[in-house]
């Protein structure tokens, strides 16, 4: 924590552009510049088609072939790495593995002994509140529980950066708000950098230090907003609602 905002820590994007095969179309991402300090929680919000998920996949190293530079902890991102975890919108658990085995999927190439892996799995299953469900298979879980497993899988490697691609987008409102609080708690406890892609402005206000508002065609950063509200925050808070309304009014009224 001593080098919180040093040159070589955290995530830096410089002039990142990405286009798909068609050169005539506007780029999916157009010269994105963004710095995220380590330990920070940043949300990327925007209408669908603004390239926010593409941006996240580039940071994860799942997609390549972009212009500009992405640096994490002083190293260029060229491919995936265990120090950068990712949670997808669909949980993407393997149906033939139970909860504990699904979490352990992330540890296959981790430099840990068998016992250490087992301990890490048990800890993270407990962290997401699923102790006792280790032997359950994905089809026996609710959508919210499956997404908790996916979060445990994303965290079990102790990545320094966790990327979340609309992780609660497919859940019902009640489950979503419960998991948002859980995520807030986990972030406060683990103190790792988190980048959350969402189309839910309230979710962004609730969880983030800063909110990056993206615009579409070409995908670009419209505004970066400092949230600066005291934590812990709740959905009902007046400040949370106020800031959400401000952002929605300023950026998303014409689009809607």
């Amino acid at each position, binding site marked *: 924590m001593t080098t919180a905002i040093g040159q070589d820590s955290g995530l830096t994007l410089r002039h990142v552009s990405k286009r798909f095969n068609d050169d005539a179309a506007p780029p999916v991402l157009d010269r994105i510049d963004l710095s995220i300090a380590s330990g920070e929680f940043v949300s990327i919000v925007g209408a669908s088609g603004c390239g926010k998920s593409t941006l996240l996949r580039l940071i*994860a190293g*799942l997609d390549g072939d972009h212009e500009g530079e992405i640096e994490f902890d002083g190293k260029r991102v060229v491919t*995936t*790495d*265990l120090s950068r*975890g*990712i949670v*997808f919108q*669909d949980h*993407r658990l*393997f*149906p*033939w593995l*139970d909860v504990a085995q699904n979490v352990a*999927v*992330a*540890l*296959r*190439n981790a430099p840990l002994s068998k016992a250490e892996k087992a301990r890490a799995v048990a800890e993270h299953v407990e962290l997401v509140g699923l102790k006792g469900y280790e032997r359950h*298979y*994905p*089809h026996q879980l609710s959508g919210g529980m499956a997404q908790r497993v996916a979060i445990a899988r994303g965290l079990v*490697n102790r990545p320094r950066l966790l990327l979340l691609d609309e992780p609660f987008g497919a859940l019902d409102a009640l489950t979503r708000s419960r998991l948002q609080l859980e995520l807030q708690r986990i972030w406060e406890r683990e103190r790792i950098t988190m980048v959350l892609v969402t189309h839910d402005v309230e979710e962004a206000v609730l969880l983030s230090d800063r909110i990056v508002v993206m615009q579409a065609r070409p995908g670009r950063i419209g505004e970066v907003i400092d949230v600066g509200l005291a934590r812990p925050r709740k959905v009902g808070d007046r400040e949370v609602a106020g800031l959400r309304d401000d952002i929605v009014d300023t950026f998303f009224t014409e689009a809607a």
Partner: protein
Amino acid sequence: MSTLDWEAGTVKGSWRGLVLPVAALAVWWIVSRGAQAGHGVMVSPAQVWDTAVEQVRSGALVRALSASLARELTGFAIGTGLGLALGALLGISKLANRAIAPSFNTFKQVSLFAWIPLISVWFGLGDVAKVVFLSLAALVPVVMHTSDGIRAVPVNWLDVARAYRYGRLQTLAYVVLPAALPSIFTGVYLALIYSWLATLGAEYLLVAGSGIGNTLVDGSEQFRMDLVVFGVIVVGLTGWALNALARGVQRRWFETSRAA
């Protein structure tokens, strides 16, 4: 959940499946009573029963059935083994797929029985020819379902493997194969059924040696309808047993750990 419903359904509704066979048996019995005695075309259930007892007692049934099953299992094993290898190759390697898949797809359009003349010239009418034929019958579904199953693995799951730095072999062993397993099993299951059907075809068309197909041939040549009917019943029951066996294995392996 679905397993329980399904099983409850079978137990409760199983008698319904028996209605048709019992009715057919009754009609058969009535009609054969009315037919002229000594007329060879129509045999009574009692005659077939006598033949069945005689076939079992003399050991003819065991000899024929074990010869057929040995053939069936040999062809099934060879065809499935080769099919798994070829299917995996077609599923995994884009190059192999481009090079081989068009030829294979043409090959599978040729009716299996069209190969019989060629097989009989090359391998004769004995066991080797029959096993070659059965292997072909088993090979096709296994290749199809293995390569399709492998190529249908969702990209989303492959992303997970890449995010956790899986190498090629790890991705294959821990993601692609488990994901493709249900489809592969379907191919193997079909191979078992097809190769049993083909066993009969082979014994009928490559007439040499013993087997349950030969029992049928003998029955029709000697105009012994009791023997023919008995043979048909044995063939049907054997197919049913193989089917039940495969279904049982499938339920045990797949339905405990995944949603249907």
